[in-house]
């Protein structure tokens, strides 16, 4: 093992070529993640023909760095423009953007970057320590029933974390779930809610929906201001831009964004236990194929609200929500490689590409990959850790570049964002229908936003609606229709109990309050 580790260090960390690949892919990944509509999956798919010609370690370096950076970079437009770059970021969009509106933009960006980087390292450590052990457990315990409850849990958390009353969150969730029903249902082999329109067969793609619900609705909200002078730029950081940098060294540091980037560190250190909890949740959920970073971020923010000192801030501008969600999503990423490496079961389209590339390199994923291909596996571990500092530097530059957006007058910025939203929505599938979805969702988000109904649960509803229904029906078909099947396996019973409690608890609390109100 030690010789394999040494070999991996030599292959992965001591080669200038690998470092070059890491730097280039981190820039590319950050760019792709930060532009709304360009996703990590698309970023990976576009480089497949290139990485195919590389050796295993450099090609893995490219993929590891690029996915980690793209996943982080989704936080940048999330806080700046209220457009989540990835669905995982949507779990705390209103918090991150709310804080930016309050003039704490640099702090949010710094917390996102640091939490993402540390989350990545944590996830990588889990991958190193427990991969073969956990992969076996995950593969043998998680059948369709357990997945059903996991999706229920994720959706419940989306309702719990949303601002204001749970009822409004529930309304948003139901809208999202209904939207997910549109199109051809594969379990029924039948088209639903398509009103005879062939375009609706493909269903509602969540990326244009996300761009519309958050980005376009924000543009509309700004445009709705009665006077043009209301389109004021976002308030500048108190003390950040006003104070002139006097010495040369200070000027360089401020230009590189070092000071701004590290200002979230004290906060994260104070929150270290929350950070550990969120990253663990991220790593555990990330390991389950098909669950991934999205559910991880939502569940982690949901739990975070339960333990928070200021739960009322959630959904409006809670730094803790941002930190916990951001850490969980990046911790989920390395963990998603566990089932991919051990059983060649891809958790998402990115790991599917990874498996494909590994097979092309004659590295066959499987339980014996730790013995037969040890240098490659250790190399991947090391790369996940080596990526973190690169991510910090690239993130710093990206935040610096993004700050320009905060200083651009909104009357220029809003039309430009709209064009980016349109381009991104179109580029996903090359389909005008997706642009239509973006526009329609923008209007929906705008109307709901004015009634204080959150958009986050709609997104998660669109993503998880189809698998939720499929898992429900699969469970019933495999047992022949008994509802007891949902509690028939130990893990299913446990997850089901948690989910039911999540919904019954607020009801019980409410009834008790009512009774107390009656008696007094």
């Amino acid at each position, binding site marked *: 093992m030690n010789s394999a580790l040494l070999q991996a260090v030599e292959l992965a960390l001591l080669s200038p070529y690998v470092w070059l690949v890491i730097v280039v892919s981190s820039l590319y990944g950050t760019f792709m993640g930060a532009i709304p509509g*360009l996703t990590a999956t*698309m970023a*990976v*798919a*576009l480089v*497949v023909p290139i990485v*195919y010609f590389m050796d295993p370690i450099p090609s893995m370096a490219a993929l590891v760095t690029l996915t980690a950076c793209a996943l982080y970079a989704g936080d940048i437009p999330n806080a700046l423009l209220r457009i989540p770059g990835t669905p995982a970021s949507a779990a705390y969009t209103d918090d991150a953007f709310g804080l930016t509106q309050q003039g704490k933009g640099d702090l949010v960006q710094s917390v996102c970057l640091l939490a993402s980087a540390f989350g990545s390292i944590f996830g990588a450590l889990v991958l190193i320590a427990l991969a073969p052990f956990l992969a076996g457990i995950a*593969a043998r*315990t*998680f059948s*369709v029933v357990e997945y059903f409850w996991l999706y229920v849990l994720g959706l419940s958390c989306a309702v719990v974390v949303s601002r204001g009353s749970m009822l*409004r969150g*529930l309304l948003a969730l139901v*809208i999202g779930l*209904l939207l997910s029903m549109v*199109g051809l*249902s*594969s379990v*029924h*082999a039948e088209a*639903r*809610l398509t009103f005879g329109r062939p375009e609706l*067969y*493909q269903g509602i*793609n969540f990326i244009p929906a996300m761009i519309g619900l958050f980005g*376009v609705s924000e543009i*509309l909200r700004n*445009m*709705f*201001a*009665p006077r043009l002078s*209301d389109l004021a730029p976002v308030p500048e950081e108190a003390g950040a831009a006003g104070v002139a940098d006097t010495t040369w060294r200070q000027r360089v540091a401020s230009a590189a964004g070092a000071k701004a980037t590290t200002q979230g560190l004290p906060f994260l250190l104070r929150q270290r236990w929350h950070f550990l909890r969120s990253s663990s949740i991220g790593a555990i959920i990330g390991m389950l194929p098909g669950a991934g970073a999205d559910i991880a971020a939502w569940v982690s923010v949901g739990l975070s609200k339960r333990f928070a000192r200021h739960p009322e801030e959630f959904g409006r501008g809670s730094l803790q929500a941002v930190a916990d969600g951001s850490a969980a999503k990046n911790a989920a990423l390395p963990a998603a490689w566990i089932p991919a490496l051990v*059983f060649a079961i*891809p958790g998402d*389209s990115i790991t*599917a*590409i990874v498996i494909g590339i590994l*097979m092309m390199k004659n590295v*066959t994923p*499987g339980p014996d990959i730790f013995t037969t291909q040890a240098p490659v596996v250790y190399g991947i571990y090391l790369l996940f850790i080596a990526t973190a500092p690169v991510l910090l530097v690239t993130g710093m530059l990206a935040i610096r570049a993004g700050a320009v957006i905060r*200083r651009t*007058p909104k*009357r*220029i910025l*809003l*039309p430009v964002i709209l*064009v980016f939203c*349109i*381009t991104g929505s179109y*580029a996903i599938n*090359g389909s*005008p229908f997706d642009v239509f979805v*973006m*526009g329609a969702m923008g*209007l929906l988000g705008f109307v709901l*936003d*004015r009634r204080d*109904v959150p958009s986050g649960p709609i997104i998660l509803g669109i993503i998880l609606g189809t698998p939720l229904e499929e898992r429900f029906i*699969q469970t019933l078909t*495999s047992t022949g229709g008994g509802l007891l099947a949902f509690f028939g396996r130990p893990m299913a019973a446990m997850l089901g109990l948690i989910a039911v409690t999540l919904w019954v608890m607020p009801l019980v609390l409410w009834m008790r309050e009512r009774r107390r109100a009656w008696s007094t």
Partner: protein
Amino acid sequence: MPDAGCRTPNAGRQTPGVARRARWLLHKTARRAVPALVALLLVSSMAGCGGGRDAFPNQPVVLICPWAAGGGTDRVARQLAVSLEGELGVPVNVINATGASGVTGHTRGALARGDGYTLTLITAELNMLHWRGLTPITPADFQPLALLNRDPAAIFVRKDAPWQTLADLDAHVLANPRALKASGTALGGIWHVALVGWLTQIGAPADGVRWISIEGTAPSLQELMAGGIDIVASSLPEARSLLDAGEIRALGVMADTRVAQFPDVLTMKEQGVDVAIGVWRGVGVPAETDPDAAAYLARALERAVTGSDFREFMRQAGFNWDYQGPQEFTATLAGLDRRFGTILGSEAFADLGKGVVGPRVFPAVLVTIGLLTLGVLLGTRQLGRTGGLDTFSWHGAARVAAVLGAVAFYLVAGESLGFVITTFAILLALMRLLEVRWPVALLVSVLVVATIYQVFANVLRVPLPRGVFGW
């Protein structure tokens, strides 16, 4: 404040005299330079938009992949694009038109302009979807140009399953109808058809093994490992890792001869069950494509597909490479289509989708919950308007309408005017609406459109509407 467009917040902090002078200088230069700069940038933004040569092909070719990025078909498409680019001398861009079990991509490919610039990576579902009434598109809507590969179906069980050979499983299924559960794809998908083909051959009823509809081979294999189902039907390469690890066993492959890369897996024929079903991937163009362009593409495809790079990729990725030219492939497709018609027309698939939970149940439950929630919210007056920007104004409403109008304009005009003109018009109009001054609005519009176009269309090669001018 008419000049807010070019003012930065920092400008106010400088001494007033310097600021005024700087602004005056900016105005003076801007007024002269902007038109020239705009013209220059417009020209440069078109750079790389093709159009030097007259002969086919002289602009980028699109390859539609009906399946998601990252899947097996997507990988084949992207590798083929690389090889084909070398033959055609123009970029070949892969577009993932996914959704609806392949209906979306095949439909878009079949209905594309017949100019030879849109190819489709057609897959086995082309033979199946129209028999199930999901699309009017049939193989006749395509001109098949090249077959790329064929992967036969195989049957897998867990390592601790009691059945050592196919005969053991046959006997169990015949003795205990509907006791076992299987998956591999959604209901009525290719592997389901394969399983029914096997059941029919051994004389079992078509629903002798219950099919659990799980979309995708990977989640089906996960379900097999977790003990939720007993059998998985899929291709051999998709299950390779678990097979090599000894976690699962292959009982038979539905081909006439053994698959070269899996010499130990017996064919079903060897075990007395005569069935051969599998997936295939190929390339087609719309049926009424210009014959010269189609012939040119077919020759380029033959060189690309039979080239050593592509063959080596297919071998390493575990796909069973199998090339056929246009004539042979057309005949193969027609034969397969008849065979799938017989299987999918049988009574086994007649009541497809009539499961325990009908297609209307979930939407109905959701509508009920939604209406209840809405009722409570309205009843308790919780849905009032909030937020600071509450006051309604016609100006505000007009601006909202303008944004939505811009999206509508893109939908109506994008495909005919092309990306550059459409987005330029949108940017300029909206900025003028927000009273950004002409020079600034022009400059920003040109810069933004040029940058997006260059990055998206030329560097990343993601699809943008091309329009009549090609940009």
